């Protein structure tokens, strides 16, 4: 404290006066002192010599020296960052609040200048400007000026892609703010006792963190401005990507090539974040961003797509087809993902999209011979995407045929619907054959391994996608294979029992299966709750078929389910579950009753 006071005393008074070059150093010292105090979360003890009001009343920052500019941008970012952190904690130092308000008030158009710094060729300046601007946007909340966003969107549309990484980063940081905030909230802020702080009062305590501080308002404004230009931006990038493949890294434009490649990837990642469930954006706000997804599909039909581009486009589609998180449990599905799913299935079926998959680095189908192991993650994501697309078109047809909800139990379809399902079944069969052949060419699975089994083997190193693919497989199977006149071959290929047994087998290799299942069920990093509901309902409804298919594995499978039932029962009794798990417990009791021959209804 004493040390800080001494430091403050050494600073000369910088009253409002014309600042010339020789005085820059003194102003910068003020910035340094304020920064130091900001990191301690309070500016109340600053001497009057540090004129808070003046530090952001600067103009023509573009002409500043590099070092000074970087210092200023970092300071702007720090100010907003601290203000945001204090707001999220519910108490803000009034001096910090004043300082951030001076910046946001933009009296000397400094924010507009920061926007223009984004396209500087110096990567340090553009990076610092990008971070500062994102935090200014978030901090400004209901004072966010639409013109700033319009200027930013204009850069996105007009500038060449090689220069756009910092611009894209601003959009990404603003729209995905929630995740960053959650990590930051781990650090508890300790403000000094003598700080003059203000408590923020919220009318509705249940309201979301984003809403509390108007951050959702910022996101909505950004989305609204961006969506007006989105189609043009997509077209610009698609054109660029189409021409990009012809460039090689050996040309003298190596730097541009690298930056262009980076911008493409960042652009696709931004799009992925916007449509992702985890970003928590309102579905009505992001509806518009689903419209042009088909444009990206054209790129996957072309040969020699770079594996990193392929992977990112597939990720974008996987997030857009939010099957296990949303569509699988919805009564009425959104039209946009269904359309994308139909397009995808068509491209796989008729345009041999899978042959273009750059699994290995070489010429020919799936990237050629067997010189290397190939990119397994790329294969996993592609397979998951196709399984999701199939599950969606099947659910869409089933929904159209019935006004009932999303349960996938057997139902009596009318003849007309049955005919429609037969056509879809034939398409699905064709696509699954191509998928099976592709996976077996890429991975060394035995020819007799069925999809139901290799799905578990292929995804065994990634829990989240493993569970997603299992849900897709069981949903495809339950609708297609258990209707009248279904293809017997499909029932064998997609057998849910085979997948479940294989899944338990995989879990049991090194660990306690029960512990792993509980981790999956109670954690929110996979969609295991949905899978266990689906498989338990299947076991209850088709007990005889299940017990026959399990063969020698029936006893171990049912021991696992019994043990899970006991653990869940204990957890529920001790109130240690993070959500209502009674429906799962009821199904487990029913399954175990069927095994032991006890009718649970009689209990």
């Amino acid at each position, binding site marked *: 404290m004493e040390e800080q006071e001494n430091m403050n005393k050494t600073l000369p008074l910088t009253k409002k006066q014309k600042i010339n070059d020789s005085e820059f150093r003194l102003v910068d010292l003020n910035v340094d002192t304020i920064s130091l105090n900001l990191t301690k979360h309070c500016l109340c003890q600053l001497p009057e010599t540090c004129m808070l009001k003046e530090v952001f009343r600067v103009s023509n920052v573009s002409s500043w020296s590099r070092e000074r500019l970087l210092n200023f941008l970092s300071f702007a970012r720090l100010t907003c960052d601290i203000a945001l952190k204090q707001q999220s904690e519910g108490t803000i130092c009034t001096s910090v609040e004043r300082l951030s308000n001076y910046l946001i008030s933009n009296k000397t158009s400094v924010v507009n200048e920061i926007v223009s710094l984004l396209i500087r060729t110096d990567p340090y300046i553009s990076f610092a400007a990008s971070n500062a601007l994102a935090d200014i946007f978030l901090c400004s909340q209901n004072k966010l000026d639409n013109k700033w966003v319009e200027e930013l969107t204009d850069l996105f549309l007009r500038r060449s892609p090689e220069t756009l990484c910092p611009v894209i980063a601003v959009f990404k940081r603003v729209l995905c703010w929630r*995740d960053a905030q959650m990590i930051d909230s781990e650090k508890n802020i300790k403000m000094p006792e003598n700080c003059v702080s203000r408590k923020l009062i919220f009318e509705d305590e249940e309201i*979301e963190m984003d809403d509390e501080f108007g951050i959702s308002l910022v996101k909505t404004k950004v989305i609204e401005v961006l969506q007006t230009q989105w189609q043009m931006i997509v077209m610009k990038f698609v054109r660029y990507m189409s021409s990009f493949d012809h460039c090689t890294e050996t040309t003298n434009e190596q730097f541009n090539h690298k930056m262009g490649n980076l911008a493409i990837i960042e652009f696709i990642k931004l799009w992925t974040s916007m449509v992702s469930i985890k970003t928590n954006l309102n579905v009505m706000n992001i509806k518009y961003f689903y419209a042009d997804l088909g444009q990206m599909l054209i790129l996957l039909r072309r040969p020699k797509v770079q594996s990193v581009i392929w992977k990112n486009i597939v990720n974008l589609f996987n997030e857009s087809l939010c099957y296990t998180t949303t569509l699988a449990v919805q009564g009425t599905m959104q039209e946009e993902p269904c359309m994308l799913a139909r397009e995808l299935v068509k491209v796989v079926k008729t345009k041999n999209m899978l042959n273009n998959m750059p699994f290995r680095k070489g010429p020919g189908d799936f990237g050629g011979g067997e010189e290397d192991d190939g990119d397994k993650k790329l294969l996993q994501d592609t397979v998951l995407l196709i399984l999701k697309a199939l599950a969606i078109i099947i659910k869409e047809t089933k929904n159209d045929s019935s006004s009932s909800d999303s349960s996938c139990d057997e139902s009596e379809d009318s003849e007309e619907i049955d005919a429609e399902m037969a056509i879809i079944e034939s398409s699905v069969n064709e696509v699954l054959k191509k998928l099976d052949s592709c996976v077996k060419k890429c991975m060394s699975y035995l020819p007799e391994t069925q999809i139901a089994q290799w799905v578990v083997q292929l995804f065994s190193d990634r829990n989240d996608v493993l569970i997603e693919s299992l849900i897709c497989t069981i949903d495809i199977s339950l609708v297609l294979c258990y209707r009248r006149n279904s293809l017997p071959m499909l029932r064998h290929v997609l057998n849910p029992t085979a997948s479940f047994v294989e899944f338990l087998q995989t879990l049991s290799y090194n660990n306690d299966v029960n512990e792993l299942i509980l*981790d999956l069920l109670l*954690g*929110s990093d996979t969609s295991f*709750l949905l899978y266990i509901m689906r498989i338990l309902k299947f076991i209850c409804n088709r007990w005889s078929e299940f017990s026959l298919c399990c063969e020698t594995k029936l006893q171990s499978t049912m021991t696992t389910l019994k043990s899970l039932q006991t653990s869940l029962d204990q957890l529920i009794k001790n109130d240690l579950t993070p959500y209502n798990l009674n429906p799962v417990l009821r199904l487990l009791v029913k399954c175990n009753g069927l095994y032991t021959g006890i009718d649970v209804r009689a209990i």
Partner: protein
Amino acid sequence: MYAVIQLDSENHRLRPKRVKMEFVCKYCNRTFNKHYSLLIHERNHLPTVNYRCEMCYKSFKRQDSLQQHRSTHSPNYRAGYALQL
């Protein structure tokens, strides 16, 4: 989460209708027909919850695992102040 009740405006006086409920996600406004479907969906919006030991800061996915872990610090350790993150 909130539910919207939809009534058949033309026929609800003539015969008793099954009330169709719509459950709306508070994060993204997507709608679901069943309460449990909404629960399944909304879990995807939540950040991953970890339960952290206040003695050694080791984190666990489950509360029961944390309770079990606590006993390793001291047999007389008092249960019940889990620090939920």
